[in-house]
């Protein structure tokens, strides 16, 4: 059974390869090697499109039946839509990072398999039946919850972006990486299902002296961060579902903390413990790391909120313009840890003139927003920039302004305006302009 299927697929593929060869030949003849700048209309006039005039394999031969993939996968033609890492950033891959392919996505939701990963001690493998969440410290009753217990609290659904504080951190000294996946891909946007932290804390009974919360992970890094109680009681959640399905192992299965609008490092994965205290703990990830060194040698600590930011995802170095001049769609993402994004402006001339882009899709607090700017490209070089403005009227700053205020050694919280240089051939490069 299986082998006869294989044979069908194989011979089908061979036929298709043959046809593709013929098709390319026909087009080459018609287009005369003029390449990308030939409009679709001109090619169509020269010779009819065999994809239309000929019966294709997929028109005739049946593909897989139901259940070929009990858990469905993307099309084989989407193999380029994958997370990618930058190997020189870290010593090895257990404590490392990869990046969301923003240029391959649209809308505001990040598919679960493409959400960037950041681990400090590999991906912990935990059976939900073996997982426990403890609350201890300054509480009336220290408690232990099983995953089943947590499902009995009132559940809520919220869409939030998660951005690593080091997103764009490699660009402080200047343009370095060619692609929005690498410059801005430490962000994802997911609908979470879980329980507000305030309900769990109420169950244990927080002492009036309890001003801080220490979440801790169950992985070998035993990640810890200090979170002020007001934030914990406001919108923080413990979640077990992302985009409707169970958390992915690399996103903290079976339980992670959600700290809306605040840096991703605080969203402790494989969450196993919440300790209530009267002071912050000043642990490694809030002293040695995730503090922002300034030019004068002092460093900011507890820089939690992710400031207003945006990025043009298409076109960009990994997604050049292939269609030539004429109608062109510029699109991208904008977000702010202070709330909703109220406006995004786009410039095609390196910040000389700006036009307000069209925000489309849901505008949710502390979530990615999608923007579009459609225009007629005359084929001359472009310097594309986007600038977001949030509900608190904070305006995304230039990289120059950030460097003037902080120097170039902050690593974290680089939300400066990005420039893509679009050449007359449609290719794109990460540049800085004056």
């Amino acid at each position: 059974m299986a082998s006869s299927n294989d044979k069908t697929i194989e011979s089908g593929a061979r036929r298709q390869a043959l046809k593709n060869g013929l098709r390319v030949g026909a087009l080459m003849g018609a287009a005369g090697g003029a390449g990308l700048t030939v409009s679709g209309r001109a090619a169509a006039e020269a010779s009819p499109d065999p994809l239309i005039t000929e019966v294709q394999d997929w028109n005739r031969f049946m593909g897989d039946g139901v259940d070929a993939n009990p858990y469905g996968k993307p099309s084989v033609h989407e193999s380029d839509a994958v997370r990618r890492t930058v190997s020189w950033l870290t010593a090895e891959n257990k404590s490392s990072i990869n990046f969301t392919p923003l240029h391959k996505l649209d809308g505001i939701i990040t598919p679960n398999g493409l959400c960037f990963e950041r681990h400090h001690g590999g991906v912990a493998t935990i059976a939900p039946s073996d997982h426990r969440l403890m609350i201890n410290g300054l509480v009336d009753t220290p408690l232990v919850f099983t995953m089943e217990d947590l499902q009995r609290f009132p559940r809520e659904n919220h869409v939030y972006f998660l951005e690593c504080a080091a997103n764009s951190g490699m660009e402080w000294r200047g343009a370095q990486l060619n692609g929005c996946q690498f410059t801005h891909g430490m962000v994802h946007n997911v609908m979470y299902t879980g329980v507000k932290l305030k309900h769990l804390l109420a169950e244990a009974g927080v002492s009036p002296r309890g001003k801080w919360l220490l979440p801790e992970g169950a992985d070998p890094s035993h990640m810890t961060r200090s979170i002020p109680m007001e934030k914990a009681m406001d919108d923080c959640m413990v979640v077990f579902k992302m985009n409707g399905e169970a958390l992915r192992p690399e996103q903290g299965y079976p339980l992670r903390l959600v700290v809306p609008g605040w840096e991703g490092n605080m969203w402790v994965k494989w969450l196993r413990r919440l300790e209530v205290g009267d002071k912050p703990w000043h642990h490694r990830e809030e002293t040695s790391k995730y503090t922002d060194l300034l030019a004068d040698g002092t460093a900011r600590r507890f820089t939690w909120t992710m400031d207003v930011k945006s990025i043009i995802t298409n076109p960009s170095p990994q997604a050049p313009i292939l269609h030539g001049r004429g109608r062109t769609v510029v699109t991208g993402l904008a977000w702010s840890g202070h709330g909703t994004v109220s406006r995004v402006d786009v410039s095609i001339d390196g910040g000389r003139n700006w036009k307000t882009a069209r925000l489309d899709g849901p505008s949710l607090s502390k979530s990615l927003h999608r923007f579009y700017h459609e225009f007629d490209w005359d084929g001359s070089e472009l310097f594309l920039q986007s600038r977001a403005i949030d509900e608190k009227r904070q305006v995304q700053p230039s990289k120059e302004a950030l460097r003037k205020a902080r120097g170039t050694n902050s690593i974290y919280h680089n939300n400066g305006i990005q420039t893509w240089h679009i050449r007359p051939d449609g290719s794109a490069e990460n540049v800085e302009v004056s």
Partner: protein
Amino acid sequence: MRNSSGNSFMQRSALLTLIMGAALLSAAARVSAAGDADAGKKLFPQCAACHAVGEGARHLYGPMLNGVTERPAASAEGYSYSDAMKRSVEEGLVWDDATLDAYLESPMSYISGTKMAFAGIPDEGQRQDMVAFLKRIATDGTGVVEEISQAEQADSSPVAEEEPRPLARDTVVPEHGVLHLGRAALPEEVAAWDIDIRPDGQGLPAGSGSVEAGVDIYDTQCAMCHGVFGEGEGRWPVLAGGFDSLTDERPEKTVGSYWPYLSTVFDYVRRAMPFGNARSLSDDEVYSLTAYLLYLNDLVDEEFTLSAGNFDAIAMPNVDHFIDDDRMEEPQYAAIEEPCMQDCLPGSAVVTQRARILDVTPDGGGDDDAAGGSID
């Protein structure tokens, strides 16, 4: 108080020579009983900081170990072996059960001068498990996870006879809280997980550790990544030095130059180090390592012993140079005004920097070493 790092180098070199000089090249003629490869796999995390296995495994600080028992010793392509290891091969070293067992028991004794700065596995049974695991990994990287045949899978899931379910009405509902969910945590449970320490010393366990005791622990558990003097191998964190570098173009943020609190060192080492073998150090060992890190940073002398009693007497040099978040007072945020829409900048845009010059984007074929910045 130590005078200079040069002095320290002499002391440390002498010490290393002593350790390595005590080589006992006795090729143990022990016959290895068959170990349990799965048990060996569970032990492997302590090796994983330096050795990769599985499909696509690359050399790290140590060579990748796919097919290590199938290939001649010291023959992995592209890995730079120590002179000591190459010499051993010339002298006839062949990896078999007995030689692997002897090497794993004490790498630095078995091959004096090996780059494998690992204390060894003292337990013979664990060594046999490890050897069995290494033997299972084929040259192509398969075998890390044992492949279970369908027949075995079917066998391993017998249908258990179902017990009658308890009645819902018999469930005991706890009294705490609002919704009466979860159960009270036992003191032993809280003690097992609550290991965090604060700058004021809250959470410090009883115990103590000296600089002297820290030397050996550091050399066997830490130096392979962090360097013998805390200088950091490759891109692993630098732990010592970097004083007065925080305003430099390339600041060196070390325990001594940057970390504001000593409690952070103790807490982090105890919760997350050694990388790949977390929670394996005793409290006294963590005190010793913390003391030794102070010593490597010229903050205490070699006679020093750290304990809960004198912990708060240590002030870290950079403690006063942290400020709270004042980003909103920066000029670009403080002045809330309508952004410019037209003729905002003079002339045409001029490119001042290009990513292509550096060419450090993956798959770009560029020189990774030219890249600046690190996010770890």
